């Protein structure tokens, strides 16, 4: 009863919200006068080019009525002739064609016409759409006059949409944008950072597609680092070939107009639209091979057994060797524990990608369309992880009249991803690295005959069968499938009310449905029959809907040639709803029955829902005098349902000025300077907390929901009265220079960003409060300072041969200026194996790390002597030498790791911890270029990062030799016998050693690297040859991604992600697999 009421309420609210947006739309429609049909008259004519007299083919001729509404239209034939029926003999006809000046003629009763078009550079499309679409979708400022900090990367145009080329890759192209991939492991995390970490928590830039902000759930495993057009296409769930351009807004003055969602930067993505002219049909086929390069070499079964025997013996002495590692042919599992299994090899396969893309576009005077269909399959590089995606897009523009234009964008994507089960936080690949290589994949009986089953013991030497599962069995038998359906639908109405006044309404609907099914059959994992992991099944369904409306009013009065003035008023609404339910069960009757609802033991059923709403208003004023002095002022107000009534609204101003000094007369003397602009901007943006209801103390039942027979309801979180907007203020000073007609361009920027009232997620409070944390706490200040430089040159620009080169470099310094009250700047002050003590300090960048100094290995027991500062041994009361100890509880022995006793007190403890390094790169950026020669072209793109340190956590995990996990081949060179003293040897193997693997500089390395990120070759078939085949164009391209990395770093990948959720973050490399290499062959045909 209550539930249905809620649903009704919700639907009601959604409808009402949408209705508010639509009201405006409808009112505008009603303003249109409906025309009555009249008698028709046929007009014939021809169009020729004025200078040459050649007929103009494919030009459009359109009739407008007195309301500037298009009534009819036609296209000229191969001889330049046309024929059109007009309703009014005195009407005006407009003739236009790409590459020609548009011409308007009054008929004055004539029935034949001969028109002469002048060729010109003006793009007719821009005339008709009044230059809206290529400008900023919110403020309508032309790219040339932008005074904030933003960079646009144009994708190749549709005719040459061959393979993925270097130009298309974003990484390393844009200064100040640091996109980092963490590793080649599928499923490893990474992220995108625009100008440093400005906030805590999941700072992710807003992604806007065709003016619509996308409510995208970015999975933790999204690989922003390798993100190029392909991946961003995947991210926003559209075909990458549909992307026309990607633009990055960097300073607050630019992103401020997007409101709170854009506080961490904005990525504007534009897709292709239909162009007037003949219908074009393009096809592209792409075949790609992804190869996982060889991973860190791991121990073989025999080497592993030897290592484990040593670990066991050193720790416990020579007794009770577990039978799994004792050579005992009578042991019933002898054959199962004496294999040499390459677990990683067993779950790895080459990945094949097949990508088919078809697009059709074209249109006439009234209607233009762009439609595309993309189908992709990817077999994945891990066993049984195929992926397929089908996506479609329709972009439709309809000119109702010269004054009124209507656009519809529709896209639908269906993706299906199969995956493998993860158990206790370990996926198939991470398990393959630690799984004992002496265990066999398949089971043998005690005589060595295969039984045909996977070898899944309930307990093995390493541990229980769930914590140490058989990765091949899980990959082969379990399933973890996710199906997603995404629909994005947006309507745009553009109405030129008066020459100086335009209104635009945008309404968009997004719908995302996700269904995840997972099943773990009992024969995939070693458990007993009572265990919950037996035939475990789960199903999760979620639906996200989002409705946004945006009303814009553009006031652009014509104030003469010297003054350009425009004002934009905007009002936005945004509402989202999420519903999800999940069902977990286990012990279904058979491993063939994997529906969780089928007669299994239901372990839990949960569901939830949430609503979020936001409103935004913007006043934007832009003024330009003589094309020299440019100013912009924006004032944005944001209201969000995530805040309480008293703190709901945030007001965020921004302002910028620009001076195009190259227009000044006194700069005319500088030869070669074609454009020069100096920009200064200041802006504020606000950021809101993550979940919609965090500010409330939600009262709910617990599990169990009763005490005796009395119901229980308790507060689940602390009510937040003080929750408010986090504000980011940013200054930006920029200089744009362009020489020799844009043959050499230069952009330099300096910026400073300060984040105030930082939102701390899950801020820990004393447990004596009865709670563990506050969902959010505002407090502290964070500063990001930096500079960026971008240089681009086209040294050779001949028709047959052209070269372009670009280079960018950035630096960002990230510092805490203030912590919240009661903030504890040291955590994990206990030390132990694998731990680095963590500190955060005022005035220090995030990412500094501390630890012990590692000095090698103690060669023998006698050598372990604590010394005074002068090097003499410390003696005890009896005059005996005192051995160095760890925390006073363990005396080091021969073969143990040797750490520097900095204070010479004979004890290795927290007092011996020193600063080891900083994970923030001093400099990062990219460079690249392209060469075009006749029909061949070649592009390359490098990226680099330098001046930072990494903790090689992989080495820490695979060279520690103190647990039962498999280790890397590096441990073969370890201390084994008393007195052994060799260069670069590792400490001894010792099961559960208290101090052999402490956080020390043993694992700290410089991460500097240069990577050849993209290399592509393209051949475009000769036009004449293609024409003979009856085609328009034909391309073949070969693209190689992440081909080469130059670094001294010994780990797999020096590119490490930054974790902005944690002020104590420092860079650790957890990648066990180097970045995969991609080889893509593609061909495209245009009809």
């Amino acid at each position, binding site marked *: 009863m209550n539930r249905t009421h809620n649903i009704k309420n*919700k639907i009601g609210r959604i409808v009402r919200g949408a209705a*508010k947006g639509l*009201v*405006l739309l409808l*009112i505008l429609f009603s303003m249109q006068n409906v025309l009555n049909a009249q008698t028709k008259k046929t007009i014939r004519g021809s169009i020729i080019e004025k200078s040459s007299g050649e007929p103009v083919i494919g030009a459009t001729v359109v009739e407008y009525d007195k309301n500037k509404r298009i009534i009819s239209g036609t296209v000229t034939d191969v001889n330049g002739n046309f024929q059109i029926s007009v309703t009014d003999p005195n009407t005006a006809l407009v003739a236009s064609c790409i590459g020609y000046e548009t011409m308007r003629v009054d008929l004055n009763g004539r029935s034949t016409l001969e028109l002469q078009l002048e060729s010109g550079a003006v793009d007719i499309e821009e005339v008709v759409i009044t230059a809206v679409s290529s400008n900023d979708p919110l403020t309508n400022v032309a790219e040339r006059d932008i005074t904030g900090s933003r960079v646009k990367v144009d994708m190749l145009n549709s005719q040459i949409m061959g393979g993925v080329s270097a130009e298309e890759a974003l990484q390393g192209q844009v200064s100040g944008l640091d996109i980092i991939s963490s590793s080649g492991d599928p499923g490893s995390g990474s992220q995108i950072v625009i100008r440093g970490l400005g906030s805590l928590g999941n700072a992710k830039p807003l992604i806007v597609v065709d003016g619509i902000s996308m409510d995208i759930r970015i999975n933790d495993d999204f690989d922003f680092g390798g993100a190029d057009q392909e991946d961003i296409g995947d991210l926003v769930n559209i075909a990458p070939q549909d992307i026309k351009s990607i633009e990055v807004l960097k300073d607050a003055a630019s992103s401020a107009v997007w409101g709170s969602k854009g506080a961490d930067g904005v990525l504007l993505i534009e897709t292709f639209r239909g162009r007037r002219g003949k219908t074009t049909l393009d096809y592209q086929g792409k075949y790609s091979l992804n190869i996982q390069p060889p991973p860190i070499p791991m121990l073989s079964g025999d080497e592993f057994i030897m290592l484990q025997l040593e670990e066991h013996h050193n720790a416990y002495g020579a007794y009770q060797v577990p039978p799994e590692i004792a050579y005992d042919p009578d042991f019933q599992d002898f054959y199962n524990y004496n294999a040499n299994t390459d677990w990683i090899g067993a779950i790895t396969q080459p990945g094949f990608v097949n990508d088919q893309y078809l697009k059709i576009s074209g249109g006439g005077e009234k209607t233009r369309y762009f439609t595309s269909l993309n189908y992709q399959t990817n077999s994945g590089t891990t066993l049984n992880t195929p992926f397929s995606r089908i996506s479609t897009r329709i972009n439709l523009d309809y000119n109702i009249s010269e004054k009124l234009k209507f656009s519809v964008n529709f896209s639908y994507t269906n993706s299906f991803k199969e995956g493998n089960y993860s158990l206790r936080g370990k996926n198939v690949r991470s398990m393959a690295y630690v799984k004992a290589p002496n265990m066999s994949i398949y089971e043998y009986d005690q005589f060595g005959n295969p039984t045909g089953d996977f070898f899944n013991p309930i307990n093995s030497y390493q541990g229980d069968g769930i914590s140490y599962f058989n990765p091949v069995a899980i990959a082969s038998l379990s399933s973890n499938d996710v199906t997603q359906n995404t629909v994005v639908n947006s309507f745009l109405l553009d109405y030129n*009310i*008066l020459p100086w006044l335009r*209104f635009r309404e945008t309404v968009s609907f997004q719908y995302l449905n996700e269904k995840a099914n997972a099943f773990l059959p009992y024969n995939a994992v070693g458990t007993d029959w009572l265990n919950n992991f037996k035939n475990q099944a789960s199903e999760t369904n979620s639906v996200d809907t989002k409705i946004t409306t945006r*009303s814009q*009013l553009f006031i652009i009065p014509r104030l003469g040639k010297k003054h350009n003035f425009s004002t934009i*008023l905007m*009002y936005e609404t945004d509402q989202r709803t999420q519903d999800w339910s999940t069902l977990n069960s286990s012990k279904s009757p058979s491993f063939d029955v994997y529906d969780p609802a089928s007669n299994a033991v239901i372990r839990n059923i949960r569901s*939830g*829902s949430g*609503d*979020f709403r936001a*409103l935004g*208003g913007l006043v934007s004023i832009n003024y330009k005098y003589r094309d020299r002095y440019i100013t912009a002022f924006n004032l944005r107000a944001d209201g*969000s*349902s995530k805040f309480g*009534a008293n703190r*709901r609204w945030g007001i965020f101003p921004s302002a910028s000025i620009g001076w195009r000094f190259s227009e000044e007369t006194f700069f005319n003397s500088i030869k070669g300077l074609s454009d020069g602009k100096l920009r200064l901007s200041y802006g504020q943006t606000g950021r809101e907390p993550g979940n*919609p*209801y965090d500010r*409330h*103390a*939600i*009262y*709910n039942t*617990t*599990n*169990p*929901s*009763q*005490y*005796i*027979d*009395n119901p*229980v*309801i*308790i507060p689940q979180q*602390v*009510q*937040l*009265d*003080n*929750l408010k907007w986090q504000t980011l203020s940013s200054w930006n000073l920029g200089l744009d220079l362009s020489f020799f007609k844009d043959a050499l361009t230069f952009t330099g920027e300096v910026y400073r960003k300060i984040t105030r009232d930082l939102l701390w997620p899950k801020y820990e*409070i*004393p*447990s*004596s*409060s*009865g*709670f563990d944390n*506050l969902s959010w*706490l505002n407090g502290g200040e964070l500063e990001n300072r930096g500079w960026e430089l971008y240089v681009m040159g086209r040294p050779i620009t001949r028709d047959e041969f052209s070269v372009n080169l670009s280079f960018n470099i950035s630096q960002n310094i990230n510092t805490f200026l203030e912590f919240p009250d*009661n903030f*504890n700047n040291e*955590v994990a*002050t206990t030390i132990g194996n694998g731990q680095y003590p963590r500190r955060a300090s005022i005035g220090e960048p995030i990412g500094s790390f501390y630890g012990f100094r590692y000095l090698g290995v103690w060669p023998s027991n006698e050598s372990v002597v604590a010394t005074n500062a002068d090097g003499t041994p410390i003696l005890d009361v009896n005059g005996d030498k005192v051995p160095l100890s760890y925390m006073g509880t363990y005396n080091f022995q021969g073969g143990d790791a040797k750490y520097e006793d900095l204070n010479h007190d004979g004890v290795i403890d927290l007092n011996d911890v020193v600063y080891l390094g900083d994970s923030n790169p001093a400099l990062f950026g990219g460079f690249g270029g392209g060469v075009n020669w006749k029909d061949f072209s070649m592009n390359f793109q490098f990226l680099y990062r330098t001046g930072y340190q990494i903790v090689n956590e992989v080495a820490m995990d695979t060279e520690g030799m103190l647990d039962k996990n498999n280790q890397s081949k590096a441990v073969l060179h370890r201390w084994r016998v008393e007195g052994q003293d060799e260069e670069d040897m590792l400490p001894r193997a010792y099961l559960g050693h208290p101090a052999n693997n402490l956080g020390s500089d043993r694992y700290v390395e410089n991460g500097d690297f240069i990577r050849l990120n993209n290399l592509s070759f393209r051949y475009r078939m000769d036009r004449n040859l293609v024409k003979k085949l009856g085609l328009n164009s034909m391309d073949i391209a070969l693209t190689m991604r992440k081909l080469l990395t130059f670094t001294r770093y010994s780990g797999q990948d020096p590119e490490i992600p930054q974790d902005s959720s944690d002020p104590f973050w420092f860079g650790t490399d957890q990648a066990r697999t180097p970045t995969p290499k991609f080889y893509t062959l593609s061909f495209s045909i245009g009809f």
Partner: protein
Amino acid sequence: MIRKPIYSLFISLLILSSCQDWLDLRPPDGLVQDEYWKTKEDVRATLMGAYQQLAQMDELLFQYGEVRADMIERDDNTPNFIRDIMDGNIYPDNELCDWSGFYKTINFCNFVLHYNPLIYEMDPTYSEIQKQGIEAEALFLRSLSYFYLVRIFKDVPFATEPTISDSVNVYLPATKDVEILAAIKVDLNKAKEIVSDDYGSLENNLGRANKNAINALLADICLWNFEYEECITYIEEIENSLVNLVPSSQWYSIFYPGNTIEGIFEVEFNESLDQGNNLYNITYTQDNYTASQTAVELLSRETAKEITRGEGSYRPTDFKIWKYCGSSNDAQSVRPSSERSSGNWIIYRYAEILLMKAEALSQLGEYDQAIEYLNRIRARAIMELKSAPDNNQAFEDLILEERAKELAFEGKRWFDLLRMGRRNNFARKDKLISIIVQNVPSNKRLVLVSKLSNPLGWYLPVSDAELERNKELDQNPYYAGY
């Protein structure tokens, strides 16, 4: 034409005026604070949350009362942090130093105490009696939690206001143990006068605060404070109630099925209502703990084996603790599978009250009277009656031994030992220390003995995490060096 944009602007303004309401969203699942506190049922449901939070701490209460004492020993699956405690390797990062469970109970009680008078004004069906009853229960639970905290950590933050919002100051310094004890005695004496005397069912009557429970807690606090006369006055009130010892033949029914005439305050569990305890797992299935050699010796010191309490407390074949898994004191039949984790955690029962009185009387020198009370417990256990020892210390030992046997594995032993060690200005601290170090490997004993001569070492350190979060707190000086 010109009017039209003005018209649409006007509409926009209209929409803006209703923004504030449109942006006010509340969670669809669960209530928010200002919607929740409306009726007496709401107060009661949160009070029940406090009981349930206490019920979730059964394993912890067992650990706090037993692991540093001598009645249990480690087994194959004893958690590492418990092994560290047993070995005397107590550091502030030990899990047992996490006091958050008690403070959750306290905070729920504080919520109840804060809103109770407000709801009384709002809800016309809420009677004065009902309101007072709820208040008494919250005061009792809060006092009980603080009594545990003071005995485990000594000085702790004393929160008496709920954490209603992020405006509440949660950075409280520690309050002296004596001040906390004085304050909760005042609260309990108030609660005693207004507590309800009948909740309508046996489970509720024993599983929720009642007059006997409050008197028992007061008596316990007085005993801890060595205020013997006052202690006896509270116990006399209990003696005048209907509570009585169960007969010898039914001694095991105290634990299974529980809720006997002897019960005073029991944390109720009922597996069929999805309210299962953790005690069954830790004592039976998981091999976390077994009865110690000391416990076995105690229970077979006088005869080969105590018939009633012996096999009712542990299973001789494998020394499994039997009070939370058996169905009778034959040490053979395990509880039926549907009721395995239904056993109550007994906080107070009448047998302990009688032993408390014996202790108080003996400390006052009333040996003859004291031995009578002790012998009532022995008689029920079908053991030979004792004659009164002639000195204070011998009597103290006799009572300690009897408590160990009667209340074995009921989370009492460590606090009993601590009380003895603190008594008469730490006169017998050597005995306490010798018991603590029993578990410790012999090569570490000497060091630990000298360390533990500082009585602050008998309390647990404040956990690392708590010190990191709350700068107003200071570490117990005994652990400050770590």
